[in-house]
């Protein structure tokens, strides 16, 4: 019997906490043999490569949409980290970008607008063995979902949060978003935006996030690396991805981003573990836009490691039959005599 990670294959036995699966680490031998892995062939004894993650469905995104690059990078990162489709759960919200889980072969849950982080947190706490990703747009993550963003940063569950930040509400056809820049004209900002945009890096830093990176959908390698680093970080990790929307954002285009971004990794003086540096670099936006790992805090264990109920195994691993032990009920009742 295959030993899945969902607990219900665990023949009623609790598994000790140490038995949790390896934290993904990069590298390792990968085989590219060109076989076509259909769903039937994607069991753990098969070969893990990009085809393993191939979905039978074609994305409905516009040709040229930045979301394609994000999809590819996620797949590539998962393959490189040697994570199988059944070991991952990708939770998204609602929006163009949030359709992503539908376009790869992996467990996915496309939830409601603004709530993927909360759903992801519940899933992670119920089954910490799953590699949980939350993926959604800037409107979803920073607009309507802003409160969960704030609190997930400080809560620090081991979730990788990938934001498809196209600075626009795309699926609803072009209203301004919390990251739209001042002056940007849309149907709901006909006179141009006059609210300060959310700087996700600064807000995440202030809210207590332990890993903050920025990347660009037009730089697939860099993006893949950021996603891998985020997944390897124990705890909440934000990857804010600059994502051109070719249909509705004619300002922040591929070129616009490409002309401005620079990788902080190329700056030897930059110390991403220093919050002060991170604040300064994180708040930089305009002529120059830093990408890369902008902040990384080590040594803070993720939320779930502190949860006392998880010390003896996860909810999905519990043998519920034990709850029918009369001794348990008797003990609980006695407290009321």
């Amino acid at each position, binding site marked *: 019997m*295959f030993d899945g990670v969902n607990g219900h294959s665990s023949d009623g036995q609790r598994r000790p906490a140490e038995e949790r699966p390896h934290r993904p680490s990069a590298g390792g031998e990968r085989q590219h043999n060109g076989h076509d892995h259909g769903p039937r062939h994607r069991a753990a004894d098969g070969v893990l490569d990009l085809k393993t993650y191939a979905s039978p469905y074609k994305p409905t995104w516009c040709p040229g949409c930045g979301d394609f690059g994000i999809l590819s990078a996620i797949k590539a990162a998962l393959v490189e980290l040697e994570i199988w489709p059944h070991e991952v*759960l990708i939770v998204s919200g609602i929006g163009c970008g949030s*359709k992503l889980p539908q376009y790869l072969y992996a*467990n996915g849950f496309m939830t409601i607008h603004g*709530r993927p982080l909360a759903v992801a947190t519940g*899933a*992670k706490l119920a089954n910490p063995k799953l590699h949980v990703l939350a993926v959604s747009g800037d409107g979803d993550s920073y607009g309507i979902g802003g409160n*969960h963003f704030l609190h997930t940063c400080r809560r620090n569950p081991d979730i990788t949060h990938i934001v498809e930040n196209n600075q626009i509400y795309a699926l609803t056809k072009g209203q301004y978003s919390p990251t739209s820049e001042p002056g940007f004209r849309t149907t709901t900002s006909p006179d141009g935006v006059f609210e300060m945009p959310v700087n996700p890096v600064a807000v995440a830093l202030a809210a207590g996030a332990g890993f903050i990176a920025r990347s660009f959908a037009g730089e697939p390698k860099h993006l893949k690396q950021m996603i891998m680093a985020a997944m390897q970080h124990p705890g909440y990790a934000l990857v804010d991805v600059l994502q051109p929307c070719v249909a509705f954002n004619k300002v922040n285009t591929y070129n616009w981003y490409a002309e401005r971004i620079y990788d902080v990794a190329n700056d030897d003086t930059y110390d991403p573990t220093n919050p002060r540096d991170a604040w300064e670099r994180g708040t930089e936006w305009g002529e120059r836009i830093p990408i890369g790992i902008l902040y990384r805090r080590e040594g803070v264990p993720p939320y779930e490691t502190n949860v006392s*109920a998880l010390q003896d195994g996860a909810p999905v691993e519990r043998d519920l039959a034990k709850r029918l032990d009369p001794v348990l*009920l008797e003990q609980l009742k006695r407290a009321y005599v």
Partner: protein
Amino acid sequence: MAAEGMHDDLSLSITIGGDAGQGVESSGALLTQALARGGWHVFAVPDYRSRIRGGHNFFQIRITRRPSLSHSDPVHLLLAYTRETLDVHKPNLAQGAAIIYDDGLRVDGGPLATEGFMPIPAPLTKIAEEHGAKVMINTGAVAAACGVLGFPLEPLVSLLHDTYGHKGKKVVEANEAVARAAYGWAMEHYEGRLAHELRPGRGHMAGRELMVLTGNEAFCLGAVVGGCTFVSAYPMTPATPILEWFAARERELGVVTKHAEDEIAAVCMAIGAGFVGARAMVPTSGGGFSLMTEALGMAGMCEVPVVIVNVQRGGPSTGLPTRTEQGDLLFVLHASQGELPRIVLAPGTHEQCFEAGWRAFNLAEKYQCPVIVLSDQFLAAARKSLPLDALTLDGVRIDRGALLTPSELDRLDDSYRRYAMTETGVSPRALPGHPRAVFTATTDEHGEDGHITEEIDLRVAMMDKRMRKLEGALADMRGPDLYGPADADVTLICWGSTVGPAREALPLLAGQGVTANVLHFTDIWPFPVDKAEAALAGVRRAIAVEQNYTAQFARFLRMMTGFEVDGSVRKYDGRPFSPQQIAARVLMEVGARV
């Protein structure tokens, strides 16, 4: 069961009143539990304001020989911590009622005696200061009440040891000393003076073991045996105690318990947990439920089992936060945009709370949909004595429905279809984590494999499939329970917690020459129409008894069956019905002489 509501003539009501912050509820809880330890049945209801200090609070305890189903008017013993207490509660006192108060309050007992009451000015402050400390005045007051009632002191002393044990020997001993002194004082001056009293010789059941728990606590116990493994919530009166109960036992029971940033997060976390396989629950009250309505639709659409407990309070909006109401029935039945399968249970008694605790999780997994448990502040906070065997594992089972077993998962050889069309509408369910059962879910309309669709036929088939689950669930829904004579002139139609006081009203009505019975609904949705119609067939005159303004259940009943009640007794002042109130209002409705 039928006999449960019956009890001999003895029914003694005690009220403890004082300011918020004076320990009214803790005194009440102490006395209640002591009485139960002494073998008496109790039913106790707190009444408090939405503030931390100041303002009149009270706690009403009813004592009976056999189990009772609610508190009861007039009050035979008043323990007054303030002068205001006297003013507020005098109208509710029975003839000859005793009134205990600290002699320092400088109440003039003369007029009270003239009115036929028995004023008992007790040196409570003095005793507390002398034998312990001033803060122990409540201990003394409770002990004095025991003395006046002729109730033995031992149960209270043992309880003081259990309650204050963790505070150290000194505290325990001081409390005991205060209790003994106050008890001694009361026995000395008032032994045998009260008409109704609780001395062992009068038939109480000392030695038998009774628990005392609230409806919330009974529900928690049910949820534990029902396999609950995940609780997420945002504090909201009167549901907060459920969250706190699990938080306090998180490690011991292995139930992940999360105080979330808001109710939206709370329910979404539970849905995330339910999606991957936890038995997840979200306790809240109406305002929190309002915030959950969007996510409720997600659970319905994605067929995720989740249990939402709405402990109703006085509405609308913030309303009367610490008070009771049954104002959310039609709301929870129709909450969230569009149409989705849901199950709604409304337990009416402590035993039914326990049962709802485990049933809700089974129904949620069996029908892969959200289950809403409707409770209310009255039921949630009322403390009731129960023999230990009132809550047992009889009939309790854990039914995970169409959850694929490990070997079934291993044998899957095709692409797994999470939303496979089936006759029952229930699709074999895998949890994320098995290599043969990788799938996506979406809140958009979708096909069998969970992929978004807008195709007409698929949409219609999926909608039918989801709603078809309710047909199966109908078989699990219980019809109404009938209490009282089958051939009554008047039938009180109840749902949820009004059943207790309504059943207690039956003998009162009988005493006025009205034969009545109670038809009580607990399983609300999918509505067991056939069972309801069968039960309604014999009804001569139906009076809805509801704790809301618009008689929501009566309206619902008409919608589902066409049956129209002949009248309704409604209460929406935030206070629970007493049996006397129901009886009086029913008599008015039926036009009988009072």
